[in-house]
């Protein structure tokens, strides 16, 4: 059974929808749906260091892979970024792929909530997406 908290999942879906919409002509290799997790990386790495961030996303990946099997083929690089999305996006069903990205981001947000609480997690999200309106980061 998935350990994703429904309201966090809903929040992650909204963030991914926003990110996908804004990245149709993305120059990065990472598929737009998975860019949301990537967008938090520099902010969290500043706070925790690359080593700390890598440890956190490794845990996220373990939790996510328990819910979405294809995530087992994804790896975490030394700087904490994910490796393998570029290849997998062509092999996995698009809906399944999106589900994987939602689950990863949900678990990342969930871990942040568990460690530092909702308010600080939202502050980090606002730092990563300063252009988001307050409605979009409404977490109530």
């Amino acid at each position, binding site marked *: 059974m998935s350990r994703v908290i429904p309201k966090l999942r809903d929040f992650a879906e909204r963030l991914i929808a926003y990110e996908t919409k804004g990245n149709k002509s993305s120059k990065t290799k990472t598929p737009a749906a998975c860019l949301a997790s990537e967008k938090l990386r520099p902010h969290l790495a500043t706070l925790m*260091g*690359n080593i700390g961030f890598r440890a956190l996303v490794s845990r996220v990946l373990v939790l996510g892979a328990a819910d979405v099997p294809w995530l087992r083929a994804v790896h975490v690089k030394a700087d904490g970024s994910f490796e393998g999305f570029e290849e997998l996006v062509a092999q996995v069903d698009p809906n399944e792929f999106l589900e994987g990205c939602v689950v990863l981001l949900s678990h990342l947000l969930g871990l942040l909530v568990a460690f530092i609480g909702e308010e600080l997690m939202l502050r980090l999200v606002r730092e990563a997406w300063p252009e988001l309106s307050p409605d979009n980061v409404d977490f109530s």
Partner: protein
Amino acid sequence: MKKPNDQAKSKLPGKSLNQPAKVTIRKLPSGVRGLDDILGGGIPEFSFNIIAGPPGGGKTTLAHQIIFENATEKHPAIYFTVLGEPALKMLRYQQLYSFFDQSKLGKAVRFVNLSDIVLEKNLDAVLEDIVKQVTLLNPSIVVVDSFRTVVRKAMATSGEMEMQSFIQRLAQFLTSWQATTFLVGEYVQEEMRDNPIFTVADGLFWLSQVPERNSVVRKLQIIKIRGQESVPGLHTVRISGAGLQAYPRTLGFVLQNKKPARRRRLSIGIPELDKMMGGGILEGDSLLIAGPSGTGKSALASQFIAAGLRAGEPGVIAIFEERPKGYIDRADSFGLDLKAPLKEGRLEVIYLRPLDLSVDETMQEILDAVERTGAKRLVIDSLVSLEMALAPGFREDFRESLYRMIVALTGAGVTIISTVEVEDTFTGFSFSHYTISFLTDDIIRLRYVEIDGQLRKVMVVIKMRGGNHSKDIREYVITSKGVVVIHPRSTEYHGLLTGIPTKTGPQVAQKDEASPEPKAQK
């Protein structure tokens, strides 16, 4: 600093008028109650400071309190975390303190992790990154936590000179950048001699935990602070939900009121005793009531407070044994209404059973209550139970701290009655087992005496620093009105103060009192 002598003054007439102004060093509030008093006004702006001590001493919490107190979007703070407490954990726990203002995170308070650079690169790279971040954010406060780990790493890979050069460059850069800096590190005091960081630092805050039998009390010492006078010595610190709170040895107590030049005589609430004291206790005096258990010390103290309340003077009663309800109820049984003033905030009864508290914390509780109520009268009932309520290791400080508190309060015009239990012996006449006469302006001694086959009570005013007093030994009783002084002095007995007086006057025939023992009546 040397004062110019008179000769120098005469050689340079008018020098002081034309002298350019000296530098003004602004002092930043620490955000820690009591610490600014200890520091001599606050933290000098642009100073380079070390917060040192063993693990668990409150170093990180102190650093957080300082940054959250001072950081704004215009004058932000940057908190570099190195090898030590992971940033997420730090945020997880520090946010539980009430001073932790989450709204400041990001813009006013920024956390930057340097652990990767420390682990993978050298001191130059560490300095380069600090310079880069500081230049980018332009912070007014910079914290490096834990600096000790930077030094350890550096010492393992570089020489001492490189280390010293790094510290020097860091200090110079941060000071030039107009940042007040705090390097947080786990050090032991023995390191102070050889470690260059302690030489460079302008301020050295030392936190420690002092164990004594089963108790542990946190202490803070300002070992060094350039440019201002700090209060020397070890000061007690407590960490609560509000963060650190420091208890300056001076008690940081500056009441608005000062002892009036012409002091009034205040009624104790026992007319005959007022007369014995030449019209009452002098305002701003400290009076000690000494006597064995059951002689009415607490009743007398309650009467003193009640008399003050009737005269519009708020009061504080500090008790350490009996619970407030019992104390108030007993006063009620003497016809003294303390409940209404308690409700109205004119009276505060503080009940302290602070095992493990230091004497300074206890004193601060009392001082806070005096400030809150604007008390003019204070009762400490009793000194013996106050001492017993303290952590064992801090009983040694008891007399010194009590003295400081009494001097501070009486200096501000508060009149104090303290009670103390003494044993009645039939060979001596002690006022107290403490040498506390220096604490008190006035002493009243209560004692039991055997008279006509009864155990009665007498009182005598032993000492009144501010004036003459009656030398009479007066008998008193405790009735439904409290302590009531009855007969005038007795001239029929000799040796009352021994407790076993000798009858020297005429024998008066008395009715036999029926024995209360049923068996004896048979």
